[in-house]
């Protein structure tokens, strides 16, 4: 079998300063799924566009099917299926019309059409929706339609640019199953993603970071570098977040994250588990240590030189939230209807001081609706939401003054400088002059903004924007923090740093409500509500949810497994009833 794509010493720059790709050499083989993995801005999209012949490399060559993209772009395009990041769907066209359009463009003979459409619609589960406008589909369905459109003429090479962004775990798993089926038919698939856990499922991985290639090969080869160095601390007495902060401060620990009620650590090479056990027992609590299977992300962080440590200067600077003996965030029978459609129904839960509560669920299940009702963005049809004891319906401004909010896209004013953004958010939260200065100084110090204060926010790197968004959300010392998919697309180091701060804040009594698709993030939660079809179908700590989903065939399910199992069980119940 011949190699489909051969990338040799490819570099690409935009303008003088932006080096999107530097000396990349890699290959894509038929019949395999190659993961193109890396955080946002690593150069994934550029590399894909180079392979389609839509861009030309500055240096080096790319050959696809043995043809050089410089000379034979048209011939290459005839046999490549490409799904750009934004699907490439016409939202004003129906599902069927989109398929027909691409079938005509790709020259699919009329005779084969009915069979191909039937197969693709069946494959993607869109058969029932052929007459629906593409714009009205959910995110996951759009991805599937995009995939179907890229597949109308079975391509030799399928390029998928971030197909799993904004897609819930269930749709993601379905997509993945489809892709595996394609790879079985000798199609070469290139799947780009910022989710490192997806890398493990690929046959081969090209790992990019800031335009350079970190790794190219089988994912197992990458994880091998941390083999034997990954451990899990279980049976933790006391607060695990505090323990994580402590352990991350230890010399022998490279990386650590919270995983439900346990902690997962990557140790330095040569460090013995016994050593760490001894150190920990000296420090404080007695815990159990057990070896854990290494993951791709562990290896990546290890490659980057380890995590950011466990100390949060931010948390240090924040005042301790007083314990009022009542829940900080409370939902009492929250209900939202849009016309006849019930988006959320009877949401009741409460989040006490110093706890992280996660809302999980497939797209369109109602978790965003619930989230928005609780931070006052959406008035409920019935029921009430309370923040810090204030009713969001009646004392809206008081409630809002006590909550901090961080949106998915880091909603800052790009035209303003870092300092002006800080001043603005301090101002709208009504901080007095002295208090404002004190807080801005504290934020500048905690996040190292000093050298960037005058820079336009728009031009900051992604990680920096995320820090600034967090700073703006917490400057007024909120009791409740609302996080909407806070770390999607950011690199693992930045994500760890972010959660270090959140953990620190929680230790100081802040309560957090977080929505996420990202299981890594869900593991940080104390409790999770799983929302499906407008209702809460499960509730509990990550470990409890995992335990609920455990079966003899899958004794140690991941949170994602649990999630999928519960949604499927709910479907089965609905079907039975």
């Amino acid at each position, binding site marked *: 079998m011949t190699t489909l794509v051969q990338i040799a010493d490819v570099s690409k720059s935009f303008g003088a300063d932006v080096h999107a790709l530097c000396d990349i050499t890699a290959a894509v083989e038929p019949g395999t799924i190659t993961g193109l993995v890396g955080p946002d801005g690593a150069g994934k999209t550029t590399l894909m566009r180079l392979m389609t012949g839509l861009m030309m490399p500055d240096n080096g060559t790319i050959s696809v099917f043995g043809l050089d993209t410089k000379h034979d772009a048209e011939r290459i395009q005839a046999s490549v299926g490409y799904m750009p990041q934004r*699907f490439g769907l016409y939202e004003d066209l129906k599902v069927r019309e989109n398929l027909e359009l691409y079938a005509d463009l790709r020259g699919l003979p009329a005779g084969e059409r009915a069979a191909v459409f039937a197969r693709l619609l069946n494959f993607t589960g869109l058969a029932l929706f052929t007459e629906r406008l593409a714009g009205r589909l959910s995110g996951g369905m759009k991805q599937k339609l995009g995939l179907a459109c890229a597949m109308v003429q079975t391509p030799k090479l399928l390029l998928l640019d971030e197909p799993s962004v904004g897609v819930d775990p269930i749709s993601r798993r379905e997509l993945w199953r489809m892709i595996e089926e394609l790879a079985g038919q000798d199609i070469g698939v290139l799947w780009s993603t910022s989710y490192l856990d997806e890398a493990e499922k690929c046959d081969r991985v090209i790992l990019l970071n800031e335009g350079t290639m970190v790794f190219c090969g089988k994912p197992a080869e990458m994880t091998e570098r941390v083999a034997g160095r990954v451990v899990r601390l279980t049976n933790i007495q006391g607060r695990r977040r505090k323990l994580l902060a402590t352990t991350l401060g230890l010399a022998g620990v490279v990386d650590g994250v919270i995983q439900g009620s346990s902690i997962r650590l990557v140790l330095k090479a040569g460090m013995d588990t016994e050593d760490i056990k001894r150190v920990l027992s000296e420090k404080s609590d007695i815990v159990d240590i057990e070896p854990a299977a290494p993951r791709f992300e562990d290896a990546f962080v290890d490659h980057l030189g380890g995590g950011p440590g466990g100390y949060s200067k931010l948390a240090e600077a924040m005042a301790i939230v007083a314990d009022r003996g009542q829940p900080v965030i409370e939902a009492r029978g929250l209900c939202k209807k849009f016309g006849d459609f019930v988006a959320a129904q009877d949401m009741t839960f409460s989040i006490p001081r110093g706890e992280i509560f996660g809302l999980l669920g497939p797209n369109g299940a109602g978790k965003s609706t619930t989230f928005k009702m609780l931070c006052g963005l959406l008035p409920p049809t019935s029921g009430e939401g309370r923040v810090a004891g204030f009713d969001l319906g009646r004392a809206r401004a008081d409630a809002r003054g006590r909550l901090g909010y961080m949106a998915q896209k880091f909603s800052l004013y790009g035209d303003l400088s870092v300092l002006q953004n800080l001043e603005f958010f301090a101002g709208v939260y009504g901080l007095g002059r002295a208090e404002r200065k004190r807080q801005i100084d504290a934020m500048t110090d905690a996040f190292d903004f000093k050298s960037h204060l005058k820079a336009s926010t728009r031009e900051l790197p992604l990680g920096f924007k995320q820090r600034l968004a967090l700073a703006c959300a917490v400057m007024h010392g909120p009791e409740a923090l609302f996080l909407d998919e806070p770390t999607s697309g950011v690199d693992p180091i930045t994500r760890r740093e972010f959660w270090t701060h959140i953990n620190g804040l929680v230790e100081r009594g802040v309560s957090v409500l977080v929505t996420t698709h990202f299981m890594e993030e869900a593991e940080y939660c104390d409790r999770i509500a799983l929302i499906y079809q407008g209702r809460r179908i499960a509730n509990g700590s990550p470990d409890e949810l995992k335990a609920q989903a455990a079966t003899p065939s899958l004794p140690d399910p991941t949170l994602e497994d649990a999630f999928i199992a519960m949604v499927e069980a709910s479907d089965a119940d609905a079907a039975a009833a």
Partner: protein
Amino acid sequence: MANLAVRRFAALLRKESLQIVRDPSSILIAVVLPLILLFLFGYGISLDATRVKIGIAIESNSAPANALASAFRISPYFDAVGARDRRELESEMVAGRLKGIVVIPAEFGENFARSPETATIQIIADGSNPNTARFVTNYARGVWGNWQRQMLAETGGREALVRTEARVWFNPELKSRYFLVPGSIAIVMTLIGTLLTALVVAREWERGTMEAMMATPVGVLQLLAGKLIPYYVLALASMSVCTIIATLLFDVPMRGSVFALFVIATAFLFPALGQGLLISAVTKNQFVAAQAALLSGFLPAMLLSGFIFEIDSMPVVIQWISYIVPARYLIPCLQTVFLAGDIWSLFLPNIGQMLLIGSVLFVAAVRNTRKRLD
């Protein structure tokens, strides 16, 4: 192979047409805006000063003064109010309620009795709108001159030695609507050809569908032609509707042939569509494209085309700029085909200019829409 290309092309056309029908902003620009503009120009905008409000200060208490005043009162051009003293009328003019005052001074009766040809009147017009002011003085002079001649004839005077006899061709009633309505069709076609096309193509860039198209075996020219033909048809359809409304509702004559109208429109849509494509290919963003289309398409078509404002009367620099405005060449053609007839000796040079500008724009657009993203 040829068959395949045809099918691809048909698919592109079908897609584009479906999008036009389903997108509210296409409907807004292609249907709602043209109708609004057409009605505004048909009903709202008129350069004909009919029944201007003026005051007559009859300060002379004499028979000829009263006779002259009533000559003004019965004039179809004026809506005259009388007063004995000009001061009564002056404040009304300051307030903008009167556009002019005709003063028949106190000594008028006396002078007229002595020698009718030397009696003098005064015309005061509100110069804050020079166009209206000029109409007021011109028509007031006309009323005055007629009355004078009539009086002279009665008192044995003789006729003027130089008599002018004006004939207005194509539009003897001097209705401004007759040239404004055809002109507004040029604006409508600019909106569809440039603004809508720019928006639609920019949207494809924005939503990433252009990227997906480019990664298919469709060629650039096919891609562009697939965009243009539906909008060409849409613009012609819109023009036809406007023409029907103009002739049936606004009574604008249609003296030329429908064939000539379509030829002219086609020639104009060439640069208009090219401009729309170029804007979208350069901006790749709907919002910026809309602004650019308005600034470089709509405003020049409105201001620098001779539609309302005489190009000859503009400063030379602005006249130079007007040479690159395609609408400048369309407006005389449209006015001619509606009011005068098929004058090919006028159409052909203008069509040539439009095609020339169109070719430049198209070459630029195609160059900017290579199948490349960098």
